[in-house]
């Protein structure tokens, strides 16, 4: 957990509304684990006032990568940064996905919807390095919403794509694609990140097939460091079902602990 006021944008690329940043920030890079996030200051004034949470898309000793979709004012400002610009970010924050050597030889399904693919590249790499047999399910509305296909391919990560409109890969929701695969082979774990509706459907699916699953939740975040109580989600705890700060205890939670809103 560092405040790096002098992180430096090394490279920025985009496919339409989706942007990929490579950022020099060695301290954050070295500490990062898959599923953790950073809080990025996008402007210098009070508009927007708050930092924006973004998952760590990949990390190494020099820094981190981010992958995001322009979704509003904050991400729009971020998308206009230029190589060499300095960035102000805090991270790595939160608790990530479960990655352990005990998973060796086991099978993991990673499911990402739209911008939710962001944390899954780092995760797939780390699982792969530990000998986990990993398949990534990558869904979007249209072909334009799954721009990271090549990146997964090049990294030698097994990738199954879906588009709602059938313009690429399986035609339908990514959850349907996962459902079909589950009917064939049962993984040992599912890791997922994406729109609430996708994750909720996937949680039901995983439960039906008796596969443990982990979900990276989203929320508007005031601080990212557990101070504002703004980012809560209903989570089953020992002490009952309470509003739990996802920046601190999450953003990744096991499916059976998450109470999805109606």
């Amino acid at each position, binding site marked *: *957990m560092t*405040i790096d006021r002098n992180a430096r944008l090394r490279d920025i690329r985009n496919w339409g509304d989706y942007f990929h940043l490579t950022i020099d920030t060695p301290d954050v890079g070295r500490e990062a684990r898959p599923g953790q996030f950073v809080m990025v*200051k996008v402007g210098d004034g*009070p*508009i*927007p*006032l*708050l*930092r924006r949470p973004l998952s760590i898309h990949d990390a190494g000793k020099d820094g981190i990568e981010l992958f995001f979709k322009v979704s509003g004012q904050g991400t729009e400002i971020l998308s206009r940064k230029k190589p060499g610009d300095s960035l102000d970010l*805090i991270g790595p924050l939160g608790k990530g996905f479960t990655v352990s050597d005990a998973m060796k030889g086991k099978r993991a399904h990673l499911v990402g919807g739209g911008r939710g693919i962001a944390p899954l590249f780092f995760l797939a790499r780390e699982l792969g390095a530990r000998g986990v047999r990993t398949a990534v399910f990558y869904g979007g509305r249209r072909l334009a919403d799954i721009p990271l296909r090549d990146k997964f391919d090049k990294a030698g990560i097994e990738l199954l794509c879906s588009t709602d409109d059938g313009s690429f890969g399986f035609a339908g929701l990514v959850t349907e694609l996962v459902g079909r695969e589950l009917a064939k082979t049962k993984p040992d774990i599912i890791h997922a990140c994406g729109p609430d509706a996708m994750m909720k459907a996937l949680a039901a699916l995983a439960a039906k097939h008796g596969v443990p699953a982990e979900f990276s939740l989203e*929320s*508007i*975040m*005031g*601080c990212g*460091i*557990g*101070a*504002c*109580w*703004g*980012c*809560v*989600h209903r989570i089953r705890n020992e002490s009952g079902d*309470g*509003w739990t700060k996802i920046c601190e205890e999450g953003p990744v939670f096991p499916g059976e602990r998450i109470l999805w809103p109606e």
Partner: protein
Amino acid sequence: MAGMTNKVDLSVDLGFLKLCNPVLAASGTFGYGLEFEPYLDLEKLGGFVVKGLYFKPRDGNPPPRLVETASGLINAIGLQGVGIEAFAEKVLPKLRRLRTAVIVNVCGEDDDEYAAVVEYLDGQEGIAAYELNISCPNVKAEGLCPALSPRTTFDLVKRLKAASRRPLITKLSPNVTSIVEIAKAAEEAGSDAIALVNTFLAMAIDLETRRPKLRNVFGGLSGPAIKPIALRMVYQVASRVRVPVIGMGGIMTGADALEFLVAGAAAVEVGTANFVDPDAAVRIVAEIESWCEAHGVAAVREVVGAIKVS
């Protein structure tokens, strides 16, 4: 950030409490303090006010609880918290070791709960003062709270003053016609200091869904947007009461803090800024010090109430 040379005397004296500098972190924006240890040295603060505590644990409001507005933040946390016992057992022992003023923000569903919290905490060591949060807009319907009337303010403060062995800081709501009247009621009832302002009752609407953006409909506005109104209220109150005033509302920089001091605040609290920069409060201390140095101000208390109105 330069020049922490202690050439400037930053200490302020609230009468009942001496602070090493006039900057406190505001309640609800600084967790229980410990969340910020990775980012700053808590002992470099004048002190901090922990998140509002009821006697019982509270679950708070359903999300979304936050929405950004132009230069502002609306929150409807609803005072989720661990309750007074868990605080005393798990948190307070860690805070007690710090050489900084730890102030507890006291809440209650009714007068009895406020009194119970104060009584319980009176049995605990390591608390510098109580800040009575009689002004949270996120708990009852449409922002109802004791600080909206001089009568309820007076009665509650009077009762708690009699019940408490510690100094009381009464935190006021800006959602009133006459902030001076309420401040005077708190002073008359024995409050040792007045803190203002809490958040402004506000709302935001999502045009596409036609729903309020906050699940709670209403929330409290904080941040730079409110600073001009907060500053006005601090100025009005500081010249009308004898007890020290603690000012807040949109302080993001040392210059903002100094404006509140010049308006008459003996100390300030930094709120929303802590979310933007977890080390904001110590940066503000350093900025105040630099400014004093650059302006030949030997002791920061010289600028308190130094406003010139002719």
